[in-house]
Each structure stands twice: as structure tokens, then as C-alpha cells.
């Protein structure tokens, strides 16, 4: 039976246990964040010494709250967690998030086993312990105990993010906030004592507001269970994974070549490849790949058409296509060549990369994209727009964004530069046009897009 996470992500009623008047306490920040996010369900504070906190009525015990609770967020010192979980179970709370640290991660295995068995007894799914909890941008829930001034929160989108680590999780959240694609759900699961990464993947697989899953993990709790979910999830939606902990310390001496080659990470990598995961090697690759996968359709093939307003940038991007074994540079059809020759000024060489020259404005881009989008020899389009050139201005952005509405091929933009460029990049990204600041990153992202759909469509 899959674990239902809806009571954690989209609760109708929440109690913050350990809510405090002291603004430095975790329980205070969580309550504050619920209020700041505009959460519209019923909110309760649990604290023995206060009548109300931040205008929210406080109770000494969770059992005194008359409402049925969908979720209890628990932020009290570890030794007190079992008793409070027991109270939650008796009160019929449907799920819990234990943000408190001090369990298995510091050797307190018994304490962790205790809270798992209480949760199991009451069939009360528990996230954590030792985690940041969840964000659901649509439900406006936020259990993160990080003050809002410390990190920007992403807007509403279709990428969901799973993180084993809290700190890496919040850093990536901050980065996502700087991207145009937004966030659907964030789930930091810490020690995975009850709800583990496979349960979360399976839940997000069936979540309509999640189109792409990105995940940071260091280990997996149950390999066989993970494989069963992995087989299904990537046939429905892409999963981009960054695995920390690649170098194994104290690897055992082996008696075969196979075992000496196949270390822990190499096996993980094999599993990810076998089941169609998109592998990121760094934090920024998580974002690069999420961006293209969430906005672009399946490509019809692997031939890349390049449009540019700078010769050098076109060459570098062409080189990048050459580095990638799975992609090819497109060749224009006869028909496209004829149309372009008629419409383009004589200084434009009619071949890929199609160099529109430095004086190209929106109109020349419009002609180029309209020809490539209908050319059967072109499967994916990279548009390079260098805003330092004399011709490029907001008219280029206006034309490209216009195409985005009805183009059926993947199209991404490379645009590199400081303030003036960034303004235009933001306009494009907010309109769902992926923008990359590096030719290699852009080409690798298309390669991952192609690879994912090749896997998804194979029988």
C-alpha cells in the first residue's frame, strides 16, 4: 500500500507542537511561516506555558484540541518526542512531521525505533525525524524552520523536489526561487524512519501537479523497494537525481575485478541508468535538466538546429553538440534553404549554425524560427541571443515568446551576459522558455531530454 502524503502536504488542520513565543525557537519560525505563506486551514499551537502565540490559540496538550487534526508538526527536544507521538496517536492525528534531530544520525537508534513503532501502532505516517518537512506551494503549507529573510521561496510550478539533506535542500530551494519554472512540492525526509524516498517517489508519481521530480540523496533505505518504484515512476515522468557520497571510504578488499570496479556508487549509477533516471553531477545540473524537462515536449529525433546572432557562440554551441555522442547537428532541408535565401540578407550563410549576424533584430529571428520549426530535418532548436550585439533588444524576446505558445518542437535559448541580458532572460523564463547561460549546459540539457524520451518510449 502506498503511503498517502496528502495529509502532510495539504492538511485541513495543523498543530505546531513546540510552538514558542521566542522568535529564535524552531517552533516559532514554523508557526510564523504557516501564517506568512497564507495557509488557509485551521492552525493550532501546542505549548504548556502560553495562551496564544502570534495570535494563534495555544493548548497545553494536543489531545485538548477538539478539531480532527490532519497533521502535527513536532519541534521539541528528541527525548520528549515519543510521549508526544503517543498523544497524537490517541488523539487520532492523521500524520506527523518530526523536524527534531537527535535520533539515528547521532547513534540514538533505540529512540528512533521507538517513534517508528508508535507511528506504526497508530498507522500514522511520520516524516523525518531530522528533516525540514514540506512545502506545498498550492496548498500554501510550509514547515521549514528557516526564517523567510534567509532564503527566497519559489513560486508555484510543476517541479517537485525531494531531499534527504536539509541544508542542501534549502540551498537548492533558494536556487529554484531564482529560476522561472517554480516549485510544486518540496519534501525533506531526513532519516527516512517511516516515510522513505520510495514512498515519496511513488506519491509524486501520481501527483497531477508534479511533472518533473528532482531529488538529492545520499543513500537508499531499501534497494529492492526503490527498484520497484523506479520501474514505474520514470515511465510516467522524469526524475533527475543527484547522488551525494560517491567515494566509498573503507571499501572492502575484493577478490574479483568485478567487485573492485562495482563500488557502491557505480552500482547506484547503474540502477539510475537502467531505470531511466536523469543523472545530475552537480547542483546546477539538477536545475538545468529540471528546466528543460518541465517545459519542453518529447523531441522527434536527435538533430539540433542552431540559430545565432554571433558567429563564435554558434561555433562553440556546434562544438558542444559534437561532444555529445547522442546528438547530431541538423542539416536544413532544400525547401528551408530556398525560403531562407529569399528572406535573409545576402550576408547570412544559409546553413546550421544559422548566423543571423550582429544586426539581427526580432524580425530576422522570427523568420529563422518559423522556418526551422517546420523543417522536418530539425528535431530540436537552440536559439542563441546575445544582447550585447547592436540589433538584439526586447523585440527578439517578444518574437521568441510568441513562438513558445504553439511550437511543437523543443526550443531553448542561450543568452549570456549581465544586467541588460538578465532582464531579457527573466522575461523569457517567466514565459516558460528555458534560458541557459552556457552552451555546454544547454546542449547537455537537450541530450538529457532526448535520452529521457528514448527511454520512456522504448518497449
Amino acid at each position, binding site marked *: 500500500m502506498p503511503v498517502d502524503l496528502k495529509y502532510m502536504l495539504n492538511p485541513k488542520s495543523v498543530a505546531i507542537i513546540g510552538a514558542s513565543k521566542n522568535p529564535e525557537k524552531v517552533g516559532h519560525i514554523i508557526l510564523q511561516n504557516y501564517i506568512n505563506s497564507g495557509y488557509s486551514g485551521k492552525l493550532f499551537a501546542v505549548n504548556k506555558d502560553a495562551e496564544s502565540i502570534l495570535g494563534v490559540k495555544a493548548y497545553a496538550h494536543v489531545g485538548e484540541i477538539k478539531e480532527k487534526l490532519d497533521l502535527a508538526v513536532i519541534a521539541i527536544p528528541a527525548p520528549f518526542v515519543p510521549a508526544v507521538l503517543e498523544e497524537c496517536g490517541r488523539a487520532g492525528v492523521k500524520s506527523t512531521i518530526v523536524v527534531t534531530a537527535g535520533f539515528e544520525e547521532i547513534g540514538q537508534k533505540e529512540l528512533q525505533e521507538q517513534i517508528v513503532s508508535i507511528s506504526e501502532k497508530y498507522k500514522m505516517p511520520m516524516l523525518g525525524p531530522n528533516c525540514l518537512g514540506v512545502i506545498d506551494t498550492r496548498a500554501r503549507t510550509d514547515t521549514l524552520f528557516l526564517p523567510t529573510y534567509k532564503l527566497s521561496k519559489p513560486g508555484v510550478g510543476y517541479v517537485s523536489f525531494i531531499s534527504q539533506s536539509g541544508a542542501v535542500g534549502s540551498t537548492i530551494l533558494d536556487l529554484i526561487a531564482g529560476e522561472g519554472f517554480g516549485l510544486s512540492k518540496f519534501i525533506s525526509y531526513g532519516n527516512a524512519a517511516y516515510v522513505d524516498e520510495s514512498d515519496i517517489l511513488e506519491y509524486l508519481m501520481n501527483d497531477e501537479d508534479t511533472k518533473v521530480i528532482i531529488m538529492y540523496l545520499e543513500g537508499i533505505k531499501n534497494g529492492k523497494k526503490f527498484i520497484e518504484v523506479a520501474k514505474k515512476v520514470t515511465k510516467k515522468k522524469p526524475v533527475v537525481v543527484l547522488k551525494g557520497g560517491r567515494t566509498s571510504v573503507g571499501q572492502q578488499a575484493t*577478490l574479483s575485478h568485478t567487485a573492485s*570496479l562495482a563500488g*557502491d556508487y557505480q552500482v547506484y549509477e547503474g540502477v539510475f541508468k*537502467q531505470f531511466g533516471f536523469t543523472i545530475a553531477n552537480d547542483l546546477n545540473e539538477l536545475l538545468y535538466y529540471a528546466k528543460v524537462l518541465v517545459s519542453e515536449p518529447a523531441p522527434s529525433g536527435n538533430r539540433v538546429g542552431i540559430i545565432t546572432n554571433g558567429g563564435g557562440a554558434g561555433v562553440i554551441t556546434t562544438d558542444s553538440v559534437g561532444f555529445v555522442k547522442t546528438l547530431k547537428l541538423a542539416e536544413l532541408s532544400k525547401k528551408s534553404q530556398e525560403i531562407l535565401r529569399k528572406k535573409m540578407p545576402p550576408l547570412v550563410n544559409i546553413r546550421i549554425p544559422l548566423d543571423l549576424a550582429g544586426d539581427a533584430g526580432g524580425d530576422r529571428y522570427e523568420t529563422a524560427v518559423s522556418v526551422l520549426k517546420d523543417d522536418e530535418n530539425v528535431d530540436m532548436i537552440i536559439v542563441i541571443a546575445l544582447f550585447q550585439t547592436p540589433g538584439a533588444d526586447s523585440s527578439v524576446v517578444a518574437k521568441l515568446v510568441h513562438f513558445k505558445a504553439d511550437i511543437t518542437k523543443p526550443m531553448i535559448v542561450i543568452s549570456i551576459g549581465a544586467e541588460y541580458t538578465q532582464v531579457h532572460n527573466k522575461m523569457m523564463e517567466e514565459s516558460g522558455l528555458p534560458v541557459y547561460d552556457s552552451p555546454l549546459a544547454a546542449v547537455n540539457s537537450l541530450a538529457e531530454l532526448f535520452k529521457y524520451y528514448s527511454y520512456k518510449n522504448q518497449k
Partner: protein
Amino acid sequence: MTLSDYFEGERLLKKYGISSIRSWYVDSAEEAISKANGNPIVMKVITEKALHKSKSGLVELDLKTDQEIKSAFKSLSAKAAKLKPYKIIVQEMSKGGIEVIIGGKTDPQFGKVILLGLGGIYVEAFKDFAIRVCPINKNDASSMIDNLKSENVITYGSENRKMLEGLLLKVSDMLTHTDLKELDLNPVILRKDDYDVVDIRILK
């Protein structure tokens, strides 16, 4: 972990439809000469104590004359004296081809996994290999080959590729149904139409 007997490994492979090059244990140079029967042979030392047979000088290739066989037996016996218990094996000489490694192990997290890589002496130098969880299907076998940098080196076209895919599926089948900790078929020598499994190492 203990090293399984070479011929026990050979029988196991055969059960899953994998043929290996003809081999015999020998106790003397005379016995080796009689097994060779005038054909060129390979002589090597089998011992749990040496993983790199060729690097440790425990393999003598392409022995043609009685004299070559005699002196190889003498020198290998001397080297192996420090590596007891050991056995000396002679094999038909492979016709040659591209060397790959096909292996497997029981991973603590994911269970049985299969490995394909550029083989022989290149295994550790280039570390060009791909891993999948068992059992694998045809797509997995094909993507293992695609994943190798040496893809174009180890395959000679579609027929040969099909043969290698088939071999991987058989090894996966064997790994899935056999209780073992580690397996090395290294090298497996691939040619256009056939292959030789030249060395079998199974650890239980």
C-alpha cells in the same frame, strides 16, 4: 569468501548455455603435453591468492613445442609454490579477438548486479564498464553496450552485438538463479561470430 573450483564454474556456465574454452588440470609437464596433442596451449596457475594472473606472471601463452610446455610448467610451479593451495590448468589457445569482462556480484543494497567492461589488461587502466541490476532485459543489455566508451571497439556490427547481448542475458539468468558473491569472466574473447570464455572466477 571462497574460490569455487574452476570446473565447477565451467559446469555452471554450461547449464546456462555459456560455453567456455576447453581446459584440463595437469599435474605434470607430460600430462600437459598429452592434453596439447600438438596444438598450441595456454598454461596458468589457479589460486585464490592472486587476482591478477597475467600481472603476477602466472600465465604462459601460446606454448607450441614440448620444450616450451616443459619449461612453462617448471617456471609456473616454482612461482606458485608461494601461493599454495594452487592448481595448474592448461587450455586451448584462443584464436584471439577483443577482450571484455563480464562479471557479477551481490550488492548489499540492490542484490545481484551484472557488469560489462573492456576486459583483460585494460579493466583497471580504463575502468570502462557498465552495471545493471539482474535480471536484465534486451534493452538493458543493449544500453550496457551503448554506455561503454569502447562501444565501437568491442562490437563488430549488428550480428556480433546481438551475440554479446545474448551472452549478457545468459549471464544475468545465471547470476539471478545462483547463490554466489562475485563472478569474473575475464577475459571473454569476442570475435565476429563466436566467443571464448577464457577465465572463470567464482567466489562463494
